[in-house]
């Protein structure tokens, strides 16, 4: 370990080893740049340690247990018992495998790794404090810096994550027992994913949401499929209520809520998961010293090369303004920043950013909705294929939902897609490629799709938009 303050230099300094930062560092090194990556906590960032990966591990495992326990219709009789601490340690192994992999990949690509917290001294150097007592610090001078410090969960007044019964998503993903009663504050995608998971694991789940539906930002008919299924899992929704406080009650707590009109209600719970959003992290690294000014919401603004106002300092990932807080967006931004430093003609010019919600069923969306297409001046041609008309969906017993394709009526160009149903997160990949390629409805409909697959529904939706679907009635 380096003790004391020595000073070294690097061509590219990346701060934060989440999916924005580690991808940027690897790509920069691949372009032959001398690259240093600093991480204060754990390789892989939020995504691998406390986000995407552990949540998907729990979602998959809880779904398997739940599905096997509810397949009498198929002739399968099982009464699965879940050992939550074993599930958690399996999940930890998955996470360890991946974070270890990230470290190895960084090294194999020649990235210098430093553990510690980086703070700007000025716009050409950071001071890195190594973790732990007496580990000392060092100064690293850089030619280019990529800030990838990510985000953290928002706390609401009265609900401190430090208190034992109050869970952040991170705490929920570290659970090694299943609470009998769980109150979830917030019905955004993280709240919905975790509500579904714990409901499948046997918790009595109550969701409290200020707005009047689940999954704000998604179209009504998409959100409805997820909400209806969540209700059938026994999840109890209370819309138009905000969590105002809590107090201990026996072994558990009572959560108080209030509507806009001042009506109050209270719910008993063992744990309270607060999932109301995430805010960017810029306070760990003294951005002002480098001349950076976060906007009013704390994000860093960039151009399409991911450059901040200080030209040789880039920002990527959750910390970036006006950019969806998604791992794959961060990774793409990381690649753009790294390649731009390397002198490549890269830009963040994605025509379509896919996004998934891993509820039951899943949601996968990309590009424009019908309303957005209209707003943008297109005359939308819209086609739909319900999964209950899909042979493959029927053979899996999962027939809720649909594929919708939105195109431009005149040119046929595919503009967007909304999928809710089995494997929606995977199916959206084809539509993302279609949009990026400038494919038309005819291109998608004219491409042979394997039978029997869920992906056929994408083709059928495109045919439906042309009035030529085989397996649905055309409007």
């Amino acid at each position, binding site marked *: 370990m380096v003790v004391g303050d020595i000073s070294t230099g690097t061509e590219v300094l990346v701060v934060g080893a989440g999916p924005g930062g580690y991808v940027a560092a690897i790509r920069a090194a691949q372009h032959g740049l001398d690259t240093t990556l600093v991480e204060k906590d754990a390789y892989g960032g939020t995504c691998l340690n406390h986000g995407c990966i552990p949540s998907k591990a729990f979602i998959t495992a809880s779904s398997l247990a739940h599905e096997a326990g509810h397949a009498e219709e198929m002739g399968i009789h099982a009464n699965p018992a879940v050992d939550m601490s074993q599930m958690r340690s399996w999940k930890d192994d998955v996470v360890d495998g991946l974070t270890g992999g990230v470290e190895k990949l960084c090294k194999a690509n020649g990235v210098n790794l430093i553990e510690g917290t980086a703070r700007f001294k000025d716009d050409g150097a950071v001071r890195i404090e190594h973790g732990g007592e007496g580990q000392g610090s060092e100064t690293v001078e850089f030619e280019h810096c990529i800030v990838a410090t990510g985000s953290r969960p928002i706390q609401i007044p009265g609900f401190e994550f430090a208190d034992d019964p109050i869970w952040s998503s991170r705490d929920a993903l570290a659970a090694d027992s299943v609470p009998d009663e769980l109150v979830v504050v917030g019905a955004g995608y993280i709240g919905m994913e975790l509500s579904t998971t714990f409901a499948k694991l046997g918790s009595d789940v109550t969701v409290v949401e200020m707005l009047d539906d689940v999954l704000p930002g998604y179209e009504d008919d998409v959100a409805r499929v997820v909400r209806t299924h969540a209700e059938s899992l026994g999840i109890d929704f209370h819309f138009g209520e905000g969590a105002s406080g809590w107090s201990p009650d026996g072994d558990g707590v009572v959560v108080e809520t209030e509507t806009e009109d001042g009506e109050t209600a209270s719910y008993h719970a063992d744990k309270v998961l607060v999932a109301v959003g995430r805010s960017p992290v810029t306070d760990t690294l003294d951005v002002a010293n480098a001349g950076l000014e976060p906007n009013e919401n704390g994000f860093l603004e960039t151009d399409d090369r991911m450059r901040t106002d200080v030209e040789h300092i880039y920002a990527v990932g959750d910390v970036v303004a006006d*950019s969806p807080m998604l791992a794959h967006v961060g990774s793409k931004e990381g690649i753009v920043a790294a390649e731009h430093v390397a002198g490549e003609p890269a830009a963040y010019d994605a025509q379509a950013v896919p996004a998934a919600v891993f509820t039951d069923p899943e949601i996968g969306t990309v590009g424009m909705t019908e309303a957005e297409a209209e707003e943008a001046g297109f005359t939308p041609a819209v086609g739909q294929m319900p999964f209950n008309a899909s042979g493959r969906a029927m053979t899996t017993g999962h027939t809720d939902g649909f594929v919708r394709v939105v195109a431009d009526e005149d040119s046929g160009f595919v503009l967007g897609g909304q999928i809710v149903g089995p494997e929606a997160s995977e199916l959206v990949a084809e539509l993302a490629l279609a949009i990026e390629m400038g494919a038309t409805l005819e291109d998608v409909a004219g491409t042979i799709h394997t039978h029997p697959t869920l992906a056929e529904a994408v083709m059928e939706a495109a045919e439906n938009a042309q009035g030529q679907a085989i397996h649905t009635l055309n409007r």
Partner: protein
Amino acid sequence: TAETETSSGRVFASPSVRKLARELDVDVAAVSGTGPSGRVTESDVRAAAESDDEAETGGPREVSFSGESAVSKRGDAGNGEVSSAASASQSAAGREKTLAAPATRRVAQE
């Protein structure tokens, strides 16, 4: 993220074509596409880089689609796409494929 090239609308060109445009310093949003429905192809970008007058051809919404121009373009589109693609892979002797998308091939058959 501010998207300097696409802020004014959708661009109908593939990722590799858009990258080529940046490399050749062509504003892809201002290129008239000769692909199906006005999709901007690799050869469109190369032509724009050579003629260097892409700035005059207008904004992205005009590029792309609709109206008679798109329809009349469709006729050559198939061939244009095929030949540009073919030249890109001339080394592949005996290749039977035409590297044109399904809709383009249909137009060619028409």
